[in-house]
């Protein structure tokens, strides 16, 4: 029989060990683990905006399938997002971001998963619509200028103001579905900032637009996708349009030129965002990071002819594209160009009102 004393010290030893060593023992430190990759992510974008080859390459490498869903307009996309539909990666124009952020609809990005962000051009970093790029990653960008049938234009068109030139009355086309741009170019033609929220300036713009209205075509009446059909009819000689429209027109053999107006072209930018209700944020970030690879971004540019915000991709881009001023405008142009920036809430209301009045205005 163990003497009590022995039992005692044995018990004592055990107890002490347990107590004291347990006293200082905390739960094991665990390095933060990455959540597992999703089986599939939903990418929401303009139809065909990302070439299938890029999507496939991603799936092949990561075994994450991509469900590609297309929207027909930003407004539609935003409405769906607000309605709560689930998307993992959404391509959204920069100007819509602040409001989405304000309504907590966008997820804060985890840059640990997007180291390729370093490839993004300084031109598109830390801009006003998303300081610090907390919610968006620049994807592609481009200009809004004028596509002109040089064979039908009497003299070279070089300014937004030329749209109001009597020579071209009735042969001018605007995208009515792009109120911001329309108003922006009008403001610029008047020498104001494309993002002006000054009521006086806007009123002036409205007046100008209303004045132009009888001479105006809506390009969507010809083709909702591209200005090329409208230009090909010859009914429109000067169209407000994008490089895409220019290239499309060239493709169908029209003699056209892409004009960067002297007052300053309009710049647009598409970004990747991740809705806050996405269940697969890290997989989405992986996808974005993949796109940001120089060669992938270059691949997209080479197929879609839209400029990429990815500077590192420059070397992989087809020199014909990278040298194409309609896609990659020169410095002068860029300096003069203005990005369509988000409006304040009041500004937005103002714009809506102005536009509505434009639409209601009676064309004479």
């Amino acid at each position, binding site marked *: 029989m163990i003497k009590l004393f022995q039992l005692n010290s044995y018990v*004592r030893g055990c107890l002490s060990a347990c107590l004291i060593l347990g006293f200082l023992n905390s739960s094991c430190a665990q390095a933060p683990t990455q959540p597992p990759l999703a089986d599939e992510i939903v990418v929401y974008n303009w139809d065909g905006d990302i070439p299938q080859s890029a999507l496939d390459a991603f799936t092949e490498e990561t075994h994450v399938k991509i469900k590609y869903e297309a929207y027909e307009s930003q407004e539609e996309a935003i409405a769906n997002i607000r309605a709560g539909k689930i998307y993992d990666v959404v391509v959204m124009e920069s100007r819509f971001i602040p409001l989405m952020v304000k309504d907590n609809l966008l997820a804060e990005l985890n840059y640990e998963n997007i180291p390729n962000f370093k490839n993004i051009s300084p031109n598109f970093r830390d801009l006003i619509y998303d300081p610090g790029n907390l919610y968006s990653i620049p994807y592609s960008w481009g200009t809004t200028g004028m596509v002109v049938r040089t064979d039908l234009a009497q003299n070279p068109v070089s300014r937004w103001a030329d749209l109001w030139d009597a020579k071209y009355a009735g042969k001018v086309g605007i995208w009515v579905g792009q109120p911001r741009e329309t108003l922006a170019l009008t403001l610029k033609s008047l020498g104001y900032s494309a993002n002006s929220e000054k009521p006086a300036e806007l009123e002036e713009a409205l007046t100008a637009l209303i004045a132009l209205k009888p001479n105006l075509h809506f390009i969507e009446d010809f083709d909702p996708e591209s200005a090329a059909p409208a230009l090909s009819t010859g009914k429109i000689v000067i169209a407000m349009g994008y490089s895409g429209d220019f290239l499309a027109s060239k493709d169908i053999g029209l003699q056209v030129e892409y004009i960067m107006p002297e007052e300053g072209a309009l710049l647009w930018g598409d970004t990747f965002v991740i809705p806050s209700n996405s269940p697969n944020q890290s997989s989405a970030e992986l996808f974005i990071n993949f796109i940001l690879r120089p060669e992938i971004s270059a691949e997209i540019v080479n197929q879609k002819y839209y400029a990429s915000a990815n500077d590192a991709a420059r070397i992989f881009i087809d020199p014909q594209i990278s040298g194409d001023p309609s896609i990659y405008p020169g410095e002068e142009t860029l300096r003069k160009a203005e990005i369509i920036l988000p409006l304040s809430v009041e500004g937005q209301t103002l714009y809506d009102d102005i536009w509505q009045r434009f639409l209601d205005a009676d064309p004479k």
Partner: protein
Amino acid sequence: MTEIRYSQSLRARVMAFMGMLFLALAILIVASILFFIYTTEQNTWRARQTEATGNAVIKVADYLQKNETLLLWLDKYEFDKIKNNPDILQEILKDNPAFLEITFVDKGGTPIMDAARTQPTLANQFTILQSEWFRVANSGQKIYTRVQTSPQNESYIIFAMPSQHGGVLAAQIQMDALWNTVAEIQFGETGRIYIVNQNGQVIAHPNSQIVLSNQNIGDTALFEAILQSPGEKWIGNALNFEGVKVVNVSMPVELTEWIVISELPQEEAYAASRQASTLIPVLVIFLMIIVTITFRRMLDRVIMQPLNLLRQGANQVGQGNLSHRIAIPRKDELGEVMGVFNGMAADLEKQQDNLQKALAYEYETKRANDLARSNSIILALSKVAAQLDSSSDSFEIFDTVGKELKKLEMDSIVGVLDDSKQTIQIRYVSIEHQVVRWVEKMTGHSVRDLAIPRHLWPNEKVITEKAAYWDPNLMKGTLNMFPIIPEKLHKAVIKMAGISMDDPVIYLPLANKQEALGVLAVWGAGLKQSDVSALSIVANQVATAIRNSQLYETEARRGREKEILLKEIHHRVKNNLQIISSLLNLQTDQVKDTGTLRALRDSQARVRSMALIHEKLYQSKDLAKIEFGEYVQSLAKDLFRSYQRALGNIKLNIQVDEIALDLDYAVPCGLILNELMTNTLKYAFPNGRDGSIQVELHAGPGQTLSLRVTDDGVGIPADLDIFNNKSLGLQLVNSLVKQVDGKLVIENSKGTSFLVSFKY
């Protein structure tokens, strides 16, 4: 001593209790020490770490301040100079490696002056107007942007401030210098700092990979705690980027949106505590073991040992060993108890002694009383003997005996067997005459007619075996003894006679050597079983009386009264001698002194030998002469028997001739034989020595007799003078030999031989 069960043992319980106590104490001590060490260490480190963090903050602020000061100075004083001579800006850039680019931008967002180490980034930005840095600086505030990484993995931040001249002065500041500064800041062995901005983005870290990989602590509990703390100063524990447990101290860099966070791995912060947590318990346990051992020893020595001694002592005393004493080694409380115990044991011993003495005394007293009683019975007898002679009527004898017994508070009945030996006739009843008369009247029978048929005798053995019988209850045995008397009357008589039927009764046989003559029943309240021996003598007398009267009746018919008388005399003498012998015997019980005892025994033997002569005479046909050969045989055997037990293996060889001796020679010769044999038996075979004794009686020619006692024992010691010896026995022999005019010859070789011869 019983083995005490472990669960009950006091020692075990004390040890367990003290063990628990020591354990608790040990735990308390260890906990306190460790806690003390822990808090001291923690406080020390925290103070140190806070200081280091403060220093780091100063360093970082200085670093930033340095750059800002330069730019401010440029803006304030050198603006025009630079405008005129842009090279100055290049120079400045060269002298300040922290700057990658310095740009002056006008209100409209157009760069006016610029110098860049490599490619101008700021100046080339076509989105200046839409840049956050421009917007903020243009609105009048300075701003540090997030850390940017170029595709070449160069890290920089953009600092922009409003220019005095309108517009913005912006600079690209490379982070390497800051990183180096940060990396240099160390405290302790493994403590270091890093910087985060308000969004939790890591701006600088000794591990540049962390910055490059855009690590963000924005959603960590640590960062939340920091933001919630007043002044963003926070001290606490968290996990760092590598998952190592650290102690963090945070402090904001003033005038920026940066926060310096210092981290000290807990391993270092609590190194002493950890060490102590293994060392201290071991030490304390060791200490406690020693304390426990010491305590156990002390417990045993001071308390358990004495307790065990007391236990043993109590056990011993309990088992009756009252002489057991405990050694008292100490003068403390237990020593006192042990002393008291010893005293108690001594008292008990004394008490026991006293008790034993008292009991012995009581026993002695009782014996003395019993002896006195027996004495008085025998004295009574002697009186009876004195009063009676052969002419006495047997009834007279009975009456005398009965009266004497009555004086001793005993009642008696004498019953005599009739000639058929089948009935006992009541010859005497000691009950008062009135009662007897009354009974005779009631029953119509004389008392002398009361006869008890054999099958109603209370105890046949009294008659058949001539053995005395003690019945503690008179009633039981005698209820139906008298068939003539109805039971009721029997009871009435008894009551009338004042006889208590619960009294004990002794039935004594009245018998001589040949036959049973009857029964003497004696009862009384104070009758004791030990009275049997004395009463037996009485019975003898009574039997003698009966026999004598029978004989007398017989002989009286024959006309041989004289012979009867003679015989009777011999018988009486024998009886008297026997009484004397009995008295002597009783005396021996009272005497403790061995010398006296021996003397008494010797006297007794002598008297017996004389009594034997008279008995022989009483039995012989020639009443004047005794058959001496037969006498020698009887006496030798008798003597031998009485000493036989004390001796080893001794053979007795008797050879006798038939010689008829008359009293004058028979008595002395008998006494001589008694002495010689007694001597031999007493001294010839000491220490259980084996041997043989020869007794020879031969008749010689001319009426001579030789009596010889021979032994092969140790022989007479050389220095013993037979003839002049002072011992009574030898004196007697000499005197007796003279008396018969005889000769004593002693041979002392291979034993001893005594030869006495004389003419008769």
